[in-house]
């Protein structure tokens, strides 16, 4: 298959890559750009482990084609911390022990960040529904929900 040239911005950096027309954005990130923070849990849009933002919108990168992102902006887990300063969500996840194995964590952090950008004061139910697309098999979600609510409270206070 003929490869295509795609030009994008990823976590603020201009990135160009070659990909095949049927390759997903997740495959491009992981296999071509070595950005392995986004995980593949299902490849069918059901687990949220591959969550990234595309022009500010939360998407499953396994459902987006690499070729589709030409000229667009992508945000991945690798861009959530600002240099050596963790995003408050990342700190709160550590503090609340909101990860066990940690495979769902990148996707959940990207999704939670996107929630708090839209809604700085979510209710518990809103957090639960927003994160319903991100599966976590280890934690029972309890500590994740607490960490997100605590982050929201702290960020509003700050």
């Amino acid at each position: 298959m003929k490869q295509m040239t795609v030009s994008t911005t990823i976590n603020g950096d201009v990135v160009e890559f070659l990909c095949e027309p049927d390759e997903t954005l997740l495959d491009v990130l992981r296999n071509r750009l070595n950005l392995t923070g986004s995980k593949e849990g299902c490849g069918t849009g059901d687990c949220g482990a591959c969550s990234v933002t595309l022009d500010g919108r939360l998407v499953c990168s396994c459902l987006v084609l690499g070729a589709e992102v030409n000229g667009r902006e992508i945000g991945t887990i690798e861009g959530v911390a600002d240099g050596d300063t963790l995003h408050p969500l990342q700190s709160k996840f550590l503090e609340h022990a909101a990860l066990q194995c940690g495979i769902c964590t990148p996707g959940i952090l990207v999704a939670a960040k996107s929630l708090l950008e839209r809604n700085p004061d979510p209710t518990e139910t809103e957090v639960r529904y927003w994160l319903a697309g991100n599966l976590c098999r280890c934690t029972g979600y309890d500590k994740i929900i607490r960490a997100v609510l605590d982050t929201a409270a702290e960020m509003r206070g700050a």
Partner: protein
Amino acid sequence: MPLDNNNRVFKSVGTSPLRPDGLDKVTGRARFGADATASGMLWGRIVRSPHAHARIRSIDTSKAEALPGVKAVVTRADFATGLDGDIGDILENVMASEKALYQGHAVAAVAATSPSIARKAAKLIVVDYEVLPHVTDVDEAMKPDAPVLNEKIFTEGLAEKPTKPSNVVKRIEIGHGDVEKGFAAADVIIEHSFRTEATHQGYIEPHACLASAGPDGQGELWCCTQGHFMVRDTCAQLLGMDVSKLRVTASEIGGGFGGKTTVFIEPTALALSRKANRPVKIVMPREEVFVASGPTASSSIDIKIGATKDGRITAADAVLRYQGGAFPGSPVEMGAMTAFACYELEHVRCIGFEVVTNRPKAAAYRAPGAPMSAFAVESVIAELAEKLNIDPIELRLKNAVKEGSRSSYGPVFGPIGLIETLEAAKAHPHYSAPLGPNQGRGVASGFWFNFGGQTCTSLNVNIDGTVTLSVGTPDIGGSRASMCLMAAEELGIPYESVRTIIADTSSLGYNDVTDGSRVTFASGLATIAAARNAIKVLCERAAKMWGIPADAVIWEEGYAKPAGANAGEFEPLSLADIAKVAGNTGGPIAGHHEVNIETAGPSFATHIVDAEVDPETGRTQITRYTVVQDAGKAVHRAYVEGQFQGGAVQGIGWVLNECYIYGEDGVLQNAGFLDYRIPVASDLPMIDTVIVEVPNPGHPYGVRGVGETSIVPPLAAVANAVSAAAGVRLTELPMSPPRILVALEER
């Protein structure tokens, strides 16, 4: 090592510091199974049977081999020969020889320069199958006219040796007393049959590995596993390699719950790599995880319990039928041993049948075998409480096992915490909170043995006074933090001064798999012993520095101090003081410990659940959930709570929704997270936890395993809550809306 004493005051242990591998995991930097690459790497893909049961007449790989980019194709001929018994079954499961025994059974594999070429090549492999009749249901598989999977299986454990092969691998029986006599003494007898469906561990990370093997007989493997030493030993046998020549590194592991305690793709990746003489990566697509890695057993269970009017159980009897998929190894024995483990019984019997079916081989799933039998038993106990009009916790307290009780599976219990969990549950505000309309409350208790096993750790004191600890048990849910806490506690240094790494198989002695809830207990015990051995060396070095005998030095809170009348006056030396000059006092300072721990420290839990059933739709919402469990000693409190919560939620999924659904054709109908739906955040309430601490005398700090017990009570606890809310006893899992609606109509 015996318990230090019950009143030891801990400094580090029992706190909840940040985990040492946390930063990597919240930034996406941590490297999991699928995250490794190597130069010149190929992509592997496995060809799997579309049929539930079929004879393989021939495999034609020529078209695939001719495809540009394909570098190797393997079939069963590329593996070791002459293996039988368990290891033979593992090989047969990894790559079929004469028959495909379930849909998804591997029959060949390819390695190519890109994933898409590998996919195309896999489709070009032509397998000529003779389709055979199949059976996927446990009760059907036991019938005399059922299609037989394996002509070599003659039921073991029968009074008379059978003359015909069947799907029943064995019959087992455990118990004591005389159940008939016990039932004769009962005022009330309750009898029910139950069914549970197979569920998958559902870890979010699919199996993945990167293998590199060459014609010189050496190899390296990177993989997500619960036990890289097991992977090394198994792969070496399957490939006919020397164990010493295969080095296995455990990646970070994205969940396992027992499902990553065996090999599936690793030997195949090695075989492909050996043939192509290039590194090969295989990542299982999610669909393959469902059809070709181990779910748990489905079961069919009969329970009979008799009791006197005042609630004393006089006899308990169970028949358990568990299917283990296409190979022997269903967890029926453990189901039988745990069924009545919470109760002190004079007359008890459990009969178990292990059955093979045309399904993927069952793997361990958190407390293997126990949740199903506990579901059945605790449902009957709930009904007994209703019938006798006794509070369900009171009824359990009346019959609960305690220190000195003879367990239903034989041994006498040491100090255990069932009564403490029941008392704590009774006292919890949840237990007395009012219920709303269409709501019901359920309770259930559960037990798991826990496990010790072969363990080896190495603790090295560095020149700056920090410590590097090597353990051989993959960290699946935060165990590095627990190890750092225990090493810090013992040495008397800050938690931050200890770094724990998971050593590869060439750097440390053999370690059993991360299973049986053994890591914090067994690797923890070995860590404490290694630290004590290092302390011995530290004291010797201090003695040398002071010029006094070694036995005149003691270790206290991180310092060597002179002790005894003739020791003399010296300023205490810290670990860092001694480490700094180690080169002048005898060289590196380290402590090791190697052990096969035969004891464990069983754990009990009691769960309380409120469920609301919608009478219109049959949908159940869990409205409140409380876990009470004995941890012995909680080393890292937050991660202990996390284990409790995670187990409870997996249990909720098992009761309400999760199950393997097979079509008439023996093909799995729901091999994806859309149709095999595990609980999501919006399905659940917060999960409250109470940590009970009855110290385990087999561990210096009193630690018991906690990971598995947490999934034993929820099936029954939720079932009891749903049955109370629906006003009808439900006996079949999952309790999905259609099933509940039918029950409501028949009420």
